[in-house]
């Protein structure tokens, strides 16, 4: 083994910047019925969407703040700007994107990534998609990949048929909030039998102090079609808390295959409260590959409802909680049909007083016969100031389910560190290597560039802990 001993530097700088943008349109701070009407008006939406938003707003007001996780009471809904439009219209090509915004994305490496293998880019700058390019070949095979706002106008039928069916506004308080004020996000439509040859990627960013970001993503994959969607997030660091409340809906029709990969690296002032859910129909496969390293607090449990016979769910959830962070993450597999399968793998690392919580649900409903399900949770704690929790909910209502669940929590083995140090690694390098190995179940599922970036992020986190 040749150990290349690269000097690890704190690369936080790279992700911590913001530009001063002139906002052309924005709502005033706080949320009222008028705010919701104003947002819908700005967007010139059909009446049904306005009614949907208002119904959601009413539910948001009625719904109590969840108490099963702590710290959410610190969110001050009156301080948030719910809609902010960075440029007047959606841009079709990179050249048309305003220079200032482009400069921000340059630093995130988007154009470079696109040159290499991007199939399309939906770059969310604050609250709306400002830049979108879809390769010609995708258009030719009928794949739609665009901003959600645009899709509402251009594909009203498909949109109306599926929007809000997977995550209704009444699902939870933050789904209601998103449904009331949503803006931006991606819309993906893959026609019957089409396999999208390259991953679709979207970069999301929050800019602007106290800007809420409420993107809404809807992915509809027709029978026998196949797609891989990737989102990665970075955000500028600010002193006060930002709120990100997204909703992602995936409809996987019979025989389709959908993979949704996320690397979440919001800055440590962001509350990231996301509802992600997929409906998996007959013989379809849905995979959530989800990593959370950033944010102050993330509450996110990617869910798959196995609605059709023979459907398969695969969820890999990874969390790294450092100083001041709480990653309240996990997964849900709800078996509603016979012969369905699910696998959940969760890995968490907590350090420097961070807290990592696995919260998951596995449910087998009456009628879902012959289910095979497994849940595996492992947690690594790097010091005794940190905390790790595991809360799995297992609810089996059939007599022929095969379900196994295992969870372990521990620290890095001193023997392993000793062994690696005897091979010439420093203690920090040894620990870093062990943590990367621990998270490999996730990393190996990523496209190479993302895997490299993710390992770099982990390394950076490890540096921070020991520096």
């Amino acid at each position, binding site marked *: 083994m040749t150990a290349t001993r690269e000097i690890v530097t704190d690369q936080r700088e790279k992700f911590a910047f913001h530009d001063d943008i002139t906002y052309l349109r924005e709502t005033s701070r706080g949320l009222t019925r008028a705010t919701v009407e104003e947002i819908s008006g700005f967007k010139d939406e059909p009446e049904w969407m306005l009614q949907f938003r208002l119904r959601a707003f009413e539910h948001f007001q009625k719904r109590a703040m969840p108490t099963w996780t702590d710290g959410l009471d610190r969110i001050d809904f009156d301080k948030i700007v719910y809609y902010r439009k960075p440029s007047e219209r959606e841009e079709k090509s990179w050249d048309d994107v305003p220079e200032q915004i482009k400069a921000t994305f340059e630093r995130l490496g988007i154009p470079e990534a696109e040159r290499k293998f991007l199939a399309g880019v939906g770059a969310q700058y604050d609250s709306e998609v400002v830049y979108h390019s879809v390769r010609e070949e995708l258009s030719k095979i009928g794949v739609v990949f665009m901003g959600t706002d645009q899709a509402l106008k251009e594909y009203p039928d498909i949109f109306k048929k599926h929007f809000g069916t997977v995550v209704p506004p009444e699902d939870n308080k933050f789904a209601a909030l998103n449904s009331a004020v949503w803006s931006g996000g991606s819309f993906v439509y893959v026609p019957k039998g089409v396999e999208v040859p390259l991953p679709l990627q979207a970069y999301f960013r929050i800019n602007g102090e106290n800007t809420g970001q409420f993107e809404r993503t809807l992915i509809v994959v027709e029978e026998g079609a196949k797609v891989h969607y990737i989102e990665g997030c970075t955000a500028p660091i600010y002193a006060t808390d930002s709120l990100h409340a997204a909703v992602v809906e995936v409809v996987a029709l019979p025989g389709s295959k959908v993979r949704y990969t996320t690397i979440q690296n919001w800055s440590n002032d962001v509350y990231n409260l996301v509802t992600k859910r997929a409906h998996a129909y007959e013989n379809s496969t849905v995979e959530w590959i989800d990593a959370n390293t950033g944010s102050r607090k993330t509450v996110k449990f990617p869910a798959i409802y196995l609605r059709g016979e023979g459907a398969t769910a695969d969820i890999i959830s990874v969390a790294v909680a450092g100083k001041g962070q709480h990653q309240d993450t996990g997964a849900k597999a709800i078996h509603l049909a016979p012969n369905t399968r699910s696998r959940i793998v969760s890995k968490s690392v907590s350090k420097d007083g961070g807290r990592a919580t696995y919260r998951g649900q596995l449910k087998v409903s009456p009628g879902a016969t012959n289910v095979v399900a497994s849940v595996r949770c492992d947690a690594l704690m790097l010091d005794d100031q940190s*905390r790790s929790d595991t809360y799995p909910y297992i609810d089996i209502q059939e*007599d022929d389910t095969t379900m196994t669940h295992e969870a372990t929590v*521990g620290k890095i083995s001193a023997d392993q560190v000793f062994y690696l140090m005897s091979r010439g690694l420093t203690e920090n390098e040894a620990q870093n290597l062990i943590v990367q190995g621990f998270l490999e179940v996730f990393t190996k599922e990523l496209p190479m560039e993302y895997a490299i970036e993710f390992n770099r992020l982990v390394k950076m986190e490890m540096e921070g802990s020991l520096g």
Partner: protein
Amino acid sequence: MTAPAARPRPARRALDELSLPVDASLLEGFAAGEPDWLTADRRAAFDAWSSLPGESNLLYTPYIDLRAAQLDEAHIVVRLAPDGASSEGLPADVAGLIEVTDGRLSTVALSAGARDAGVVVRSLLDDLDAVRDELTDVTAIAASDKFAQLTRAAWSQGVLVDVPAGAVIDRPIVVRWAVGSVGQALFTRTIVRVGDGASATVVEEFVAGPHADPTAAQSLFAGTMEVHLGAGAALQVASLQELPTNVVAFEHRAADIGEGASLQWALAQLGGRLVRSRVDNRLVGDRSSVKQVEIVFGSDEQLFDLSSFTTHIGKDTTGDLLSKAALLEKSRTYLKGLITIERSANGTDSFLGEFGMNLSKAARSVAIPSLEIDQPDCRRAMHSSSVGPIDETQLFYLESRGIPPDEARKFIVLGFLEPVVARVPLASAQDRLRELLEEKWIAGTDGVAGEAAA
């Protein structure tokens, strides 16, 4: 089966609301003739009962369902006529026997050997002041549990098992609760004190009393077992719950485990309509350990709501917890377990296993094996859980040995529950448990076969 037509449909209730009528005048009934400190203790517990939610731990809020309890007509026992307890009838293989029938002490007997060793087995009411410290110890009963606090407020009978330091009692001490008198709501406390270096075995039995009638209105039995283990003490507790099917039971067990002490629980849950049990193990002393095995064999519409909280506080402590549920017909279990490793608890070894076997399509098993860990310097911290049907390979193997399929199934299910049976430290109680499991298997599977034939 048809429900009695005359009985009105019970009012719609919240999942965590108990239908038992309770009001503050209850405390006045107890106050007369009791020491002031006890009245104050009941008062504080009553206030806690009034303000606490039905499920104290937010993790488990969706998994409580007390609607099966129909106790609107039940009355809480406050004072009973004086006891005329017999001291006869001590079986040869036990060291002591205390039997309480519908709240009245019916038998108290102790072997000569146990008496000589200084063991005391008596009703708490015989001398309240002698156990004042234990009765008023706020950690002795789960402070956050609404129904544990109601028990603390409304107990009218209690048992003390006191094993002094150094005493080694080989034969078990049997504590028998015979209950189920129609319309009765009985609350009790049991204190088990095992002194430094002492060791003892307690067999706790919950059985149908002489006035029990499974076809009559429901009754309630709520009892505690408060265990105090001194340094190096060892205690084994086996509990066999075979209450009639119209009894609602609340069981609250809590143990403070001292330095180097060890505690073993073997808990069998078979009877009752609705059973809610909670065990709190507090591993306070360094090198203390707890081993807990619990089985459920459910049938009909029984609901078993079983929580177990194990807190590691001292260094190098060990927790080993195993729960198994086999469910026939429409029975349900909620297995809720939480291991907490506090920052002070270096060197912990903790395991929690929750396993279910649904033997009917209408059965439901819920497992929530949770971990909260503040100290990663541990030998082991893990849980594991599985739910599965009867293993076809095992079945095939047994059938290939000439065992008929129904018999083979029975062997597999009873084998699944054997870990608790094997731990019952009294041969007669062990035989009794095996017999009960078999009876229940026959009753439960006949029902299924009958349905299939119809």
